[in-house]
């Protein structure tokens, strides 16, 4: 029983990490309607940036979050403006190739610059273990959990309470109608992509102290993030949050009860089943609840 509860705690903590990454992916997919295959590489860029800021400038990873969020917002803006925007009306397969190409280029660029070595940010305070009764959690994980909840609620409030948020939702629901109402659709796309990437910036600052950085770290996380997004109904923030929690739990439980090297098989199987049998996501958030 103790083990089960510990596994559930681990699962929820892992889930909060997936939630932060997936919320950005959901935002980009929901608004721009482009599946960003290079999303994981944004995380990779963010993690290298955090590493550099921490080791070269001696910043605390959580302080480094501020410039990294800005850097990722800018990266997102540039990707949208110069790669996605010219392809908005192109065939779907061309958009897929463009983001896949970007992903390949970025991974290999990192390989050229940093090599295949693992880089870790050392931050003892974040890796300190907290004891809750007989159970263990790292400080970093608790921060991540809190950050995930604040981010999801904050983004939801932003989308529903502000004029910009409403314009983003309008664009997501009907691009042409939004255009006719005077919304600058291309600007909205740029902002949304930037925001989606900025979420990843936050994620990278929180993830860096817990996971080592490699050129392919993004590939590992992005496939999981796609599973989460599909599970959550693809366009809903809350859907992505609950989807992330489920995948976190599946990850943690199947690694223990099935086999550590087969946990991905379990959630890829879930992913394929959801896509085939319930493409609007597990919670039916798929339509009309943006």
């Amino acid at each position, binding site marked *: 029983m103790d083990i089960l509860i510990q596994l559930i705690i681990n699962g929820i903590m892992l889930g909060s990490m997936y939630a932060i990454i997936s919320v950005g992916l959901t935002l980009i997919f929901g608004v721009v309607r482009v599946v960003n295959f290079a999303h994981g590489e944004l995380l990779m860029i963010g993690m290298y940036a955090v590493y550099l800021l921490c080791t070269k400038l001696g910043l605390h990873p959580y302080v480094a979050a501020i410039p990294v969020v800005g850097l990722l917002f800018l990266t997102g803006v540039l990707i949208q403006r110069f790669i996605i925007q010219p392809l908005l009306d192109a065939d779907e397969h061309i958009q897929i190739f463009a983001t896949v*190409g970007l992903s390949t280029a970025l991974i290999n660029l990192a390989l050229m610059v940093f090599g295949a070595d693992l880089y870790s940010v050392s931050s003892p305070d974040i890796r300190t273990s907290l004891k809750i009764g007989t159970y263990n959690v790292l400080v970093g994980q608790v921060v991540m959990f809190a950050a995930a909840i604040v981010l999801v609620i904050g983004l939801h409030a932003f989308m529903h309470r502000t004029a910009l948020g409403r314009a983003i939702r309008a664009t997501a629901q009907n691009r042409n109608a939004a255009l006719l109402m005077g919304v600058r659709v291309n600007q909205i796309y740029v902002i949304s992509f930037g925001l989606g990437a900025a979420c990843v910036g936050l994620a990278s600052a929180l993830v860096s102290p817990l996971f080592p950085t490699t050129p392919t770290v993004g590939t590992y996380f992005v*496939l999981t993030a796609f599973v989460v997004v599909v599970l959550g109904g693809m366009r809903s923030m809350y859907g992505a949050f609950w989807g992330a929690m489920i995948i976190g739990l599946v990850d943690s439980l199947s690694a223990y009860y099935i086999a550590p090297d087969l946990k991905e098989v379990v959630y890829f199987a879930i*992913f394929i089943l959801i896509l*085939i049998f319930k493409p609007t996501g597990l919670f039916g958030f798929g339509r009309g609840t943006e």
Partner: protein
Amino acid sequence: MSTRPIIDVPRTSWLSMALFQLTRPQVYCSLFLLSLLVAIPALSGSAFLIHIFVTICVFAALSTAWNIVGGYAGQLSLGHMMFYGIGAYTTSLLVTHFGLTPWIGMWIGAVLAALVGAAVGYPCFRLRGPFFSLSTIAFLEVVRLLSIHFVGLTGGSAGLIVPLKLGWAWMVFPDKVNYVYIAFGLLLLCIGVSLAIRQSRLGYYLTAVREREDAALAAGINNSVVKLKAVIVSAMLTALIGAFHAMYLTFLEPATMFSLGTSIEVAMFSLIGGLGTVAGPLLGTVLVVPLAELARGWLGASASGLHGFVYGVVLVLITLTLPAGLVGTFGPAVSRWIDRLPGGRRRLADRIMPQLRQISGDKGAPLIKADNLVMRFGGLLATDHVSFTLNRGEILGIIGPNGAGKTTLFNQISGFLTPTSGTVALLNQEGAFVHPSSPDEFARLGIGRTFQIVQPFGRLSLIENIMIGAFLRHPHVDDARAVALRVAATVGLLDQKDVEARNLPIGALKRLEVARTLASEPSILLLDEVMAGQNQKDTMGMVALIRAICQTGVTVIAIEHNMQAIMSLSDRIIVIDSGRIIAEGDPQDVVKNRKVIEAYLGEDFVDAQGF
């Protein structure tokens, strides 16, 4: 520009046709260039060149096989290495444990890959573009993780070494040039299959399904079956290449056998060369692979990641600048240039089918019985207990205000919508009433429909669009073309036969819609507002055409807003308003009906006129 005319070559005998093909400059130039792939390494004998050319042949073959699914069918698989790995592991394991020669083992691997391909494809084909790609990645990852997990079978991450038994029987050679011959043979096989598909009904069907699923269904194409055929062929070819490549590399590990990166590269070669073209994948590979291999050779390990970086950048640049790929962009110009060589400027003479087939049967006998059709969309009742019978040989007009439910009714009697309740019964060839369930089944039973909003296959030429319809009754390309030419002449589109459909004006597209449907030789023709967008002269032409079609025994149902045309055409009229039939009968009686005038012009008008 030369002013030499194009010569029509008559179709005399099988031998003369073969001779004609071989003496075409496009054919002999391609054969010459292909032979260089084997001649250069064989004559040079350099180990480095041999390695490069084996790699080129393997990747060109992989890319050509991928293109059948990714290009022809437009299903962007990013997990194709799954089939490659299956072929490689099956063959190697059979050699290791059972001493079975790879020449047989590779076919067992191919059959296994075909089964996996069908099992993956069938559920995933309904997914939209990016989600299809994602699910293929997920499948690839699953297979890779399983191959690592089952150490006993595959050797796990540590890998598997192919037993070193030398000779042709074991596909392992000390003299490396033999590998070039086999790799080249596999490449020829892939290109041959790819070419054969391109020039067959399957190739046209794949393009049709890729361009517009609905219009393909209406032409009687079973979309899933067509895509499944493509994935099975592609998976088998990919597995054969994987089997050979494993024998060449003599070492297998999950990370390289089921690599996502390689899957992307293979797709990339096709994109660079030209998606959906026969030569594109080969061209893309020939251009990119040597560059990458040379860069690797010169820069060595110090530049790890460089070739991947270049691949990625090239991929992004191609999508931004040449999305049609090299063949798609420059192909037509190069082809015209090659056509000036000796033997060019000749083509086979067009064959035109003489006339429409005559449909026989008792005039006035019921063909379609629609019984109490109810179609509910959420709270909206689009058709409300609609019942009617269509009789052989008549022209039935359906009129009604906008939003009355006319097109919804059409969708139910052509299989695009399944009624919430009620049934559609259709007379089949044997004279029994049947209840088909899918649009392609309706089409095969002789229902031909047009779409109110035209649905051309944009990237096919006008004549190819019509051929898609003709294939339903004429599986051979030659016959289908002959039928299509006849139909194009009937509807007055023959002079634009080689124009791509996306470049046609709306009037021509409306007629193309009718032509494609006619080419499927329907016994019942469903016309959805085909007069809209036509000028006065074309409308009269269309009226005459519909009469002529009816003369051949075809029964017609037409939805139309052009009152003059529909009144003069129809033998009988059904008026629909708010999902119900409000009047039915002779055109003259229907126009005097009080309810009909109310529906169109409002009660006030009726009262004012004192009807």
